[in-house]
């Protein structure tokens, strides 16, 4: 990626989305090989797509072209295109750019007519789509002396900001809590780009006292955002966005319930994308995406269809940390090769009591949003004592009828690594299933290449 144009990254994605939609338009194209290989497919592409096509992971194209994956792939592409158009529109209108940390949603920023961009999303989408993922962003920030063990989800965007290929922040929003790499990188961005850092506190406990404290700090956050945006938070405008956010949340919670079905009706590669769209809750694009995923899974349940090849026994996997974004095809491979489905993880699991936001009044909406953030995957598991994470996954393994627990820990997530043994012990004792513990980086394939991941899986499933 060249340095210096603040829309370059998002416009590259936009081309990728248009390209995906173009290719998905060929209904008989169900793999690159079937069409005579990569070069043959390249030949059918209009010129403006070819450079972009060369950047895309070839096996990703094969994955989305599979009949079972096409519908959601199209929804993903449509929704992301629309989000990019929205971003470009708001940049044209010179709205204030608010970068925000992922375990929260966009409603308040939208109601204040700001442009919300999730810091962690930028590297994630690039990692998921391109051969070299978000390595350029990671390398750029590390070249400044920042350690490799920080989280790639902030490293990538920090590098992109230095490269000037994403919009500069006018303000940064962050939960102040027990994730040191993200806390520190948001402060770095605030200092480096002279943008105020507005925080709200996720205190250490998961109780009423802590929740009340959180609500108070969210209210302070709103006051500060009002000053920066120059707008007051209008109850009616907030209600509109909260309703859209509720639509997405409702589908998301229903999809979770569907994944309890045997066989699991929801393909594994959706999990990283689910996380990406959950960051956009409040935007209509998130609601459209989750609607498509829900309908896709529901149809499969109604028809008794499976996402794993006929004749394979399903191995139901709960992922106690989470996915990696750098190889969506790897998760498809797990289904195809091993019949291994992906039930839930700490980046997707909203406990059922998350519920919807009560739109009765401004206060109920602010409290409802704060409650959703309190329950948000990763926030909930990470903010407090290990028991919450451990107990959530013991319950998930039971309720989702898991056969095993995968702990593919992210290098940067130090507090996870300090509880991984407690978690695997609890799952063994209380559910009686084995755990596979392995190391990966969430966005950077160079840390544990896909070939190595596959070897780890082959060995584990052979033992299972």
């Amino acid at each position, binding site marked *: 990626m060249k340095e210096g144009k603040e829309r370059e990254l998002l416009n590259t994605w936009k081309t990728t989305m248009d390209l995906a939609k173009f290719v998905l338009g060929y209904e008989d194209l169900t793999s690159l090989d079937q069409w005579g290989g990569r070069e043959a497919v390249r030949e059918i592409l209009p010129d403006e797509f070819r450079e972009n096509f060369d950047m895309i992971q070839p096996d990703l194209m094969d994955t989305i072209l599979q009949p079972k994956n096409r519908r959601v792939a199209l929804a993903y592409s449509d929704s992301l295109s629309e989000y990019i158009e929205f971003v470009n529109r708001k940049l044209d209108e010179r709205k204030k750019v608010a970068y925000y940390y992922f375990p929260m949603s966009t409603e308040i920023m939208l109601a204040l007519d700001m442009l919300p961009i999730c810091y962690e999303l930028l590297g994630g989408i690039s990692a998921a789509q391109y051969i070299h993922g978000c390595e350029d962003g990671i390398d750029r920030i590390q070249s400044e002396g920042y350690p490799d063990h920080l989280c790639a989800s902030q490293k990538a965007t920090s590098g992109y900001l230095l490269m000037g290929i994403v919009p500069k922040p006018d303000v940064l929003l962050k939960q102040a809590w027990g994730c040191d790499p993200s806390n520190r990188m948001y*402060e770095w961005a605030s200092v480096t780009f002279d943008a105020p850092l507005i925080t709200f*506190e996720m205190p250490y406990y998961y109780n009423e006292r802590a929740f009340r404290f959180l609500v108070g700090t969210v209210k302070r956050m709103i006051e500060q955002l009002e000053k920066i945006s120059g707008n007051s938070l209008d109850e009616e405008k907030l209600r509109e966005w909260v309703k859209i956010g509720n639509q997405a949340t409702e589908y998301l919670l229903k999809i979770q319930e569907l994944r309890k079905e045997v066989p699991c009706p929801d393909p594994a590669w959706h999990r990283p994308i689910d996380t990406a769209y959950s960051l956009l809750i409040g935007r209509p694009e998130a609601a459209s995406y989750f609607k498509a995923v829900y309908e896709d899974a529901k149809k499969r349940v109604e028809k008794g269809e499976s996402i794993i090849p006929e004749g394979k026994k399903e191995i139901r996997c709960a992922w106690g940390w989470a996915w990696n974004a750098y190889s969506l095809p790897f998760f498809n491979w797990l289904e195809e090769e091993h019949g291994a489905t992906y039930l839930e993880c700490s980046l997707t699991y909203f406990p059922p009591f998350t519920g919807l936001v009560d739109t009765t009044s401004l206060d109920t909406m602010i409290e409802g949003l704060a409650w959703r953030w309190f329950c948000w995957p990763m926030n909930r598991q990470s903010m407090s*004592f290990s028991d919450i994470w451990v107990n959530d996954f013991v319950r998930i393994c039971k309720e989702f009828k898991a056969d095993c627990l995968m702990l593919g820990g992210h290098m940067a997530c130090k507090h996870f690594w300090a509880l991984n043994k407690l978690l695997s012990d609890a799952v063994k004792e209380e559910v009686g299933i084995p755990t596979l513990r392995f190391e990966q980086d969430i966005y950077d394939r160079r840390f544990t290449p896909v070939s190595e991941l596959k070897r780890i899986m082959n060995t584990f499933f052979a033992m299972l």
Partner: protein
Amino acid sequence: MGALEELLKLPARLDNPYVKEWRENVGYVIGYVCTYVPEEIIFAAGMLPYRVEARGCNTTELADVYFHRFNCTYPRCILQLGLSGDYDFLDGFCLLNGCEQIRRMYEIWSKYVKTKFLAMVTVPHTITEEGYKWYRDEILNFKESLKGYFAAKLTDDDLRKTIKVYNESRRLIARLYDLRKSEKPPISGTDAFKLITAAFWMPRDKYNHLLKGALDEISQREGVSNYRARVMIGGSACDDPSFIELVEGRGGLVVTDSLCFGSRHFFNSVKEESDPLEAIAKRYYHHNPCPRMLKEYGNRLQFTEKLAKEAKVDGIIIQRISFCDNHGVDSPMLAKDLEAKGIPVLVLEKEYMLSDIGRLKTRIEAFLERIEER
């Protein structure tokens, strides 16, 4: 043994005669981590606060069953000593959400080390009025749980008396830092660090008495002049003088620090004339902030620069423990800004325990050469 020698030779943990004596003749010993745990409350309750350390630990094999190679070796070493029984002498242990790795010791400690009283004090990550109230309630809860569990008597008067004792330590330690600002500091950085850190591991009133004697002794000295450069140490938790000794072994003289086992712990006093618990809460919440506190980078930079100027340092060594995220990000930020102000900075990645000495020596040597060539 003179006061100076006694402080310089203070052994660790149960070999420490003050800890032994306290346990035998006085009462309970309460371990704690981090500069946000108010020691005054423990001492005022008639118990000995002991800042948990892992000096001399050179393996993490027991801790690594629960922690991982991606975890910083500071909590891993502490846990190692906990699991191997070195901390069986603690009657209680107060942890804190200082960083995301230290905080996770709580659960493992409670399950496998089984210190009978375990507490958690939590501190918000930003300095605000609401945050202060949260923290004040946390230390109030800690105080009440300590009193309740150990049936301890702890009045406001006890707190006031203890505040005076602890403030006296702070004044004496500040004097030690002042002495080191001179052209010919009367004490090496290694010995100064031993004197300072002894405060964590003995009754504070006795410490004050010994430190006064030691300061009298030191002030008579001629002072050190055969050094290559005046150096400041900053960065991750460092409780072991052996790293400072390594720097001084290459010819640097460590004249100040911004460590949480050094100036950051001792530089702010508690107000003596107000409500004692409020005064303690205010002092600890607002003391020179650790990088775990958000939106405080400017203050940390200012604090570091001020120390460097006052002690007339030629360069700063920021040692960061591998996988320490807080200092991992703070160190290149500080290095960039301090270099821009003309202060040479070496960011040195290391483990908590002193290992990989050859590489460290080479890096320190090269840094001192760089300073000399200026």
